[in-house]
């Protein structure tokens, strides 16, 4: 590797350095606030290193990574979302005793894995990045180990993620056996749909197995069974991380991989993806309808949102890549804000995710209720929020590629989605007797995250042009 390579890798190197620094700090002396501060400083330094890397982009660093504008945008999204999760985690764990510092260490590990995923252009980097992310997440999900439901969620995620990694590896092996390379660009160069039926079967089987692994991570129907339980069992900041960073990174990778590979496999593969997208939109929205836990409701809604994103992924036109990038940014903001509201309201013993605990919230904590309303409206895709603009771009990308029946499904299921988002909003504004009368004071770091995400949400919803122009320049 040469010096230009190191400069291009600077964000990853800074992040690894921060990982070491946080670990040393914990070894020297445990201090919750200081650990959180050092974590944030490390993430900020990594974000500051992004322009340095961007000046050298696009560049291929060894066979494994491709640092380009597309990857760097997603890296920025991952780093900022991780910083928000760290702030929420500080608010969440502040009143705990016991070991809280490892949370930040695991969070940085997971962020590094996600950053590797978004710039990987080789199956090896893909798998290693995904495993770093998964292994850190097992421990993060089960972090409050005095809570039975967290441990249960951690075990559930561990078993299913390990199983899906097996599918992923077998898919990679079949593709390698057929194409003789693990490199994404070399796979693209290897040519179109294979001539013989046998190689076609090998390639399609490999891609389908790959899709099982990716579908598990994205919680697409029918690989979604873990989502609700893990979302509910994990501590709220970790749920925010699973919902945002882990999914964003895998979507970024899927798009980078499919752009060359999907076309080679012919129409069959696109049809599989389209069925998954439709099933996720329908299944996610219908399952969310009758949930009494806000965390489970958001879990099912995130399944539906990944279905919407797949419509843009399938579109594969010139508008598709910026549409996916914008949608993931808007989705990340809204999910961070939603789980942030739950995180700042949770106490040491219970997660504040029961729907009835939100009744009359507006009259007790009007600001919190307003923030949550904005987030839910954005998830529902109401105008003036980022979610609306994102959905608009997804639909227009789909329309350019004539994916009419998927767009019709998207519009119809969004209408269903509106019902359960508004149900939560109506609960917050209802004047029925509130369950707990003493509102918890919101910790400053949590309030900071909520304020910034609300401002960004509305700013992106009203003036999306600067970001859209930036994305169009960055898309490959």
């Amino acid at each position, binding site marked *: *590797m040469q010096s230009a390579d190191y400069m291009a890798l600077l964000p990853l190197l800074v992040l*690894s350095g921060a*990982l070491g620094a946080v*670990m040393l700090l914990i070894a020297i002396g445990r201090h919750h606030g200081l650990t959180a501060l050092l974590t944030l400083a490390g993430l900020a330094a990594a974000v500051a290193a992004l322009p340095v890397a961007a000046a050298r982009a696009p560049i291929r*660093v*060894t*066979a*494994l*990574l491709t640092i380009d504008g597309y990857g760097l945008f997603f890296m920025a999204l991952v780093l900022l979302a991780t910083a928000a999760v760290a702030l929420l985690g500080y608010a969440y764990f502040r*009143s*705990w*005793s*016991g*070991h809280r510092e*490892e949370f930040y*260490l*695991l969070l940085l*590990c*997971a962020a*590094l*894995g996600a950053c*590797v995923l978004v710039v990987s252009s080789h199956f*090896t*980097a893909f798998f*290693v*990045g995904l*495993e*770093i992310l998964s*292994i*850190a997440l*097992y*421990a*993060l999900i*089960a*972090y*409050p*180990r*005095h*809570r039975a439901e967290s441990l249960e969620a*951690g075990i559930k995620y561990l078993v299913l993620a390990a199983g899906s990694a097996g599918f992923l590896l077998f898919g990679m092996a079949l593709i390698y056996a057929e194409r003789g390379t693990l490199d994404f660009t070399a796979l693209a160069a290897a040519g179109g749909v294979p001539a013989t039926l046998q190689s076609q079967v090998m390639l399609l089987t490999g891609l389908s197995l790959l899709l099982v692994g990716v579908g598990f991570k994205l919680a697409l129907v029918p690989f979604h069974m873990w989502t609700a339980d893990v979302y509910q069992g994990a501590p709220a900041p970790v749920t925010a991380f699973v919902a945002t960073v882990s999914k964003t990174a895998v979507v970024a990778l899927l798009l980078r991989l499919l752009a060359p590979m999907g076309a080679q496999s012919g129409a069959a593969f696109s049809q599989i993806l389209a069925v998954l997208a439709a099933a996720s939109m329908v299944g996610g929205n219908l399952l969310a309808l009758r949930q009494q836990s806000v965390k489970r409701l958001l879990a099912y809604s995130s399944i539906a949102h990944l279905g919407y994103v797949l419509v843009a992924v399938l579109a594969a036109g010139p508008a598709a890549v910026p549409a996916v990038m914008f949608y993931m940014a808007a989705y990340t903001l809204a999910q961070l804000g939603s789980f942030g509201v739950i995180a700042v309201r949770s106490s*040491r013993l219970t997660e504040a995710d029961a729907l009835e605990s939100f009744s009359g919230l507006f009259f007790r904590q009007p600001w919190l209720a307003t923030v949550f309303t904005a987030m839910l409206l954005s998830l529902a895709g109401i105008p003036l929020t980022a979610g609306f603009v994102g959905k608009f771009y997804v639909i227009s990308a789909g329309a350019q590629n004539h994916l009419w029946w998927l767009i019709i499904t998207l519009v119809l299921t969004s209408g269903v989605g509106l019902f359960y988002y508004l149900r939560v909003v109506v609960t917050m504004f209802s004047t029925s007797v509130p369950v707990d009368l003493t509102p918890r004071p919101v910790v400053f770091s949590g309030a900071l995250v909520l304020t910034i995400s609300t401002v960004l949400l509305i700013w992106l919803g009203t003036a999306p042009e600067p970001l859209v122009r930036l994305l169009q320049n960055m898309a490959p």
Partner: protein
Amino acid sequence: MNTLFYLAAAVAILATLLVITRAHAVHALLYLIVSLLAAALAFFLLGAPFAAALEVIVYAGAIMVLFVFVVMMLNLGTHSVRGERQWLRPAAWVGPGLLAAVLLAELVYVLGGWSAPATTPAAIGPREVGLALFGPYVLAVELASVMLLAGLVGAYHLARPQKEAEGEA
């Protein structure tokens, strides 16, 4: 050569099935070792002796022996001797022993020269693997260390002895 490969693969599948159906952890681990040995033999028959050796040393050797010892040591006590005698009744070791004997017979058959050597373009030795790992794949090696760190920190946090009233202020 194909027959030998499929025989080893069948042993691997059979042993793995027995791993997940055994009720006793030590018995399951014995089958798991056989399953890993069978996978190693499959590697060897495909012309990858180095991968086969690694499989034996790392998985069947170090990790599994550690597993067996830890599981056995977990229930120490006065009745541990009786317990161990119970674990090693013939019914427990005959199955894994037979499967391992099949693998041994295959290995002797191949090494004895009764079978044609594996048709492989070039045997990949430790030198080539090392050059690849610390050449084009050096970043993967570095990232694997982060992966191990995440596993270590997570295991430390989850397995630490429980204190009173943890998570409470």
